[in-house]
């Protein structure tokens, strides 16, 4: 992964040798020769851990989707605390101007391959707050894989979205493609740039 502002030579230079090069070789070996691609897709699709970022009131139904009646854990999805260990973000409703920065930062903190689900009318086109002066459409800041309509959507809809995402990961080979080539086959990893943190930086 290229980082802006760092010379190509400096990249990947860490204490324990050239990790980037090592990782590349390992990738070639594992995916190319051992045909682990299918297994990676299978593992990723059954290990979608959503990061614990509650943007708004759809969080109620998000919580209910992991409650005993709908139990999101049956899909192997476990809401997790730190963004570094997760690979799925569920935008739960309205994203306000203040929250947009948090969404963007959280998304950037997550390791690839990562996925995003937009939940609720507010996360699609603002819902009932479509003309509010304080909201941001989340698809303007991060690339969304699945959209769930409803206000709030039923917990089954969240389950439906996870099932759909799992199927598309397996059928399109998103995770293995990422491991091999470092790109998402279907979508760019980064959405159109919009500086949502400008209010913070001042």
């Amino acid at each position, binding site marked *: 992964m290229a980082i802006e502002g760092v010379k190509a030579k400096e990249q990947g230079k860490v204490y324990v040798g050239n990790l980037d090069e090592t990782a590349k070789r390992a990738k070639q070996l594992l995916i190319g020769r051992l045909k682990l691609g299918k297994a990676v897709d299978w593992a990723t699709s059954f290990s979608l851990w959503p990061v614990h970022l509650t943007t708004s009131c759809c969080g109620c139904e998000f919580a209910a989707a992991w409650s005993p009646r709908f139990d999101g854990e049956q899909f192997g999805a476990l809401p997790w605390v730190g963004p570094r260990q997760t690979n799925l973000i569920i935008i739960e409703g309205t994203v306000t*101007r*203040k929250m947009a920065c948090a969404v963007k930062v959280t998304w950037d903190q997550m390791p690839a391959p990562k996925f995003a689900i937009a939940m609720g009318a507010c996360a699609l086109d603002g819902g009932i707050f*479509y*003309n*509010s*002066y*304080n909201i941001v459409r989340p698809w303007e800041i991060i690339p969304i894989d699945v959209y769930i309509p409803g206000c709030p959507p039923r917990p089954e809809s969240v389950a439906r979205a996870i099932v759909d995402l799992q199927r598309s990961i397996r059928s399109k080979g998103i995770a293995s493609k990422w491991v091999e080539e470092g790109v998402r086959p279907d979508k760019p990893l980064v959405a159109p740039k919009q500086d949502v943190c*400008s*209010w913070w930086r*001042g």
Partner: protein
Amino acid sequence: MVEGLRFMKLSEEMVRVVIEKVKKELGDLVKSVEEGKGYISIKVPLNRLREAAVKLKNMGFDHVKSLTVTDYKKKGVFEVMYMASSYLDEELSRIIVSLTVEIDRNNPRMPSLSDIWTSVEFQEREVYEFFGIHFEGHPDLRPLLLVPDIADLKPLTKDFIVKEEPIFKS
């Protein structure tokens, strides 16, 4: 049943008693006292607001439920209402009094009451960002909810216009 905890539906009689009491207590401070729908409106001049607030607090109105500001653009004033009520006094807790002042829309400055009623502290911060009313003597007057660039627009004043979409699809 404990005496004093007896249930009584709020009657006009009770409201009238409280109005009399307020009138007696506040004396010449008030411009007018009248009964509104669900509250008693006490209008006071701006320069005697703090005096009136102290007296109300001593009467037993120990907290503020709502700091309501209305923008009357045509009149050129902000109407600021401190809706106070009581927790510790069983009888007064049924009544809500609103301590109302009008301030100039173009120079929105008024004394802060957050040292009299602590419960109003966050609401004064909120009013500060939404209307730009500067509360003199507030310990911590910063925007509370909004990001700075929107707080500059003073979104709850009538100058800030939000449009609704028409019912026809273009």
